[in-house]
């Protein structure tokens, strides 16, 4: 049973419609995003399911996952806080901002908070260099940019994420 086809039949159809029918393989990247969305990492079963839809072997799909940095084979935090510390941002204090944020969260570079909610990591330029320090939040809901930050502002954003996650959990239980 293909989970993606069962769970998201319309979305799979819309993705495939973008490419010529004889080039289904082009759908591998959007399908991987679809598979990753609800749990923020790609499982073995996802590799098989995605491969089945776009005509690739599990190994071929895995090599795609391994090549691109926005797909994760290991589970991490529910939210990935990705701080740009590339050159233009670093010229405007991004390294100090990142260190400050890690300290306030009590995690190491690349670490995850004890509640499993937040993973913090450094990333390369995100095309927002004029609004450094900045970060993006990657989650099952997609990707959001937050710019012109201080550590305090970033902590407020993270608090917002925590509350949203709690509300979501309550809803799921109800």
């Amino acid at each position, binding site marked *: 049973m293909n989970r993606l086809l069962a769970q998201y039949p319309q979305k799979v159809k819309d993705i495939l419609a973008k490419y010529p029918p004889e080039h289904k393989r082009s759908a*591998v*990247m959007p399908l991987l995003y679809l598979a990753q969305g609800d749990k923020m990492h790609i499982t073995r079963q996802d590799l098989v399911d995605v491969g089945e839809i776009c005509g690739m072997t599990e190994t071929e799909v895995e090599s795609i996952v391994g090549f691109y940095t926005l797909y994760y084979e290991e589970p991490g935090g529910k939210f990935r806080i990705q701080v740009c510390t590339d050159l233009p941002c670093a010229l*405007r204090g991004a390294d100090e901002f990142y260190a400050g944020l890690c300290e306030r969260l009590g995690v190491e570079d690349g670490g995850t908070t004890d509640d499993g909610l937040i993973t913090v990591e450094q990333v390369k330029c995100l095309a927002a*260099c004029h609004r450094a320090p900045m970060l993006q939040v990657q989650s099952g809901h997609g990707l959001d940019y937050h710019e012109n930050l201080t550590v305090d502002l970033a902590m407020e954003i993270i608090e917002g994420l925590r509350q949203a996650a709690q509300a979501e959990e309550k809803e799921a239980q109800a």
Partner: protein
Amino acid sequence: MSYVLLRHRDIPNLKQLDVYVENGGFQAFRKAVTEMQPDEVTGQVKISGLRGRGGAGFPTGLKWSFIDNNNWPHYVVANADESEPGTFKDRELMEENPYQFLEGLAIASYAVKAHTAYVYLRGEFWQVAHFLDACIAEMEKAGYLGDNLFGTDYSLRIYTHLGAGAYICGEETALLESLEGNRGQPRLRPPFPPSYGLYGKPTIVNNVETLTNVPLIIEHGGEWYRTFGTEKSPGVKLFSLSGNVAKPGNYELPLGTTFRELIFTHGGGIPNGRSIKAIMPAGASSSVLPATDEVLDTPMDYESVRTVGSDLGSASVIVIDDSFGMDWVINKTLHFFKHESCGKCTPCREGTYWMMNISDRLTQGRATQADIDLLESVARQIRGKSLCALGEFSTMAVVTSIERFRDDFEAKTRTEEAEG
């Protein structure tokens, strides 16, 4: 001067279809499809002298004329991968003036008789991609995309495609591989995409900014565009200004504007009482320029920047003040290139790793004089031996920093020797 590209700064809400149409939107596309032959469209773009804004500066009309008419179908792909550190212009265009970009893509598609076009966006532009999807849906509803456009038999569809975090996918053949569902590793060129591109079919790849110029060129004619800029570098350019300046941001200026005008008049100069030390005119891939008067007075066009020992590239101008050492600057660029090397060829894969390693030692004060020469020699060995330009890019800042700012490197080894 009113804006050519950043027109949303003149016209509020230009990102709404009705506002765009009220301000002449899609007239150029209509004119092209109903009144011009595809070759005539290409001809006007040739006359305009427009050159690719993705970095290489290749003449756009000429590229379109290379499309192989013996092999079908044709494709056009907009390069919205924008990942060069210091570059953030395409994002503003897509977020704030999306229809002008999409109209440019549509006109390019008509000019090369393509009926399908893709926009390849870096994965981080997730929100931008969703916004463009909504814009594309609006265009379909209003009859600017789909079948029988403007009552002719021309049809066109545009789709977005998200990458997933790999700088190399900005290189056009890696981008095509990625779009085909493969790892984003460059192809050997030639053949070039206009003869062998997406799915092996003739394909034009153009940068977002390049395409955003096209509607106004068709509306006003190629000659009009030449009234901006210089003889050899006509037109306007978006300069992404970042680093140690008071007002970083995107500036639309005629090609040939000086560094001084960009940095001091528009960018507000250097903050915190510091003075300017160096300029990287093309992001992390730049040859580094010392900020001498000669350099500051150099016009920013493709030819002039070369005469002072660098390249304009994507015109992502990074300003560095005198509180930073160039050893630290190249350590940042090397971490970037080491991370982004796609691993396909050995000189780049191994070379970026070793350069980063030596550079780490240097910035941490653990290197000797000999390491400076070793770093330079590794960089020089990568040159000319890599499959794509990334290998070359990774060495530019290294070699020029050691050449032009050697003191910064020696100071690091001297502290080490003094401390024993």
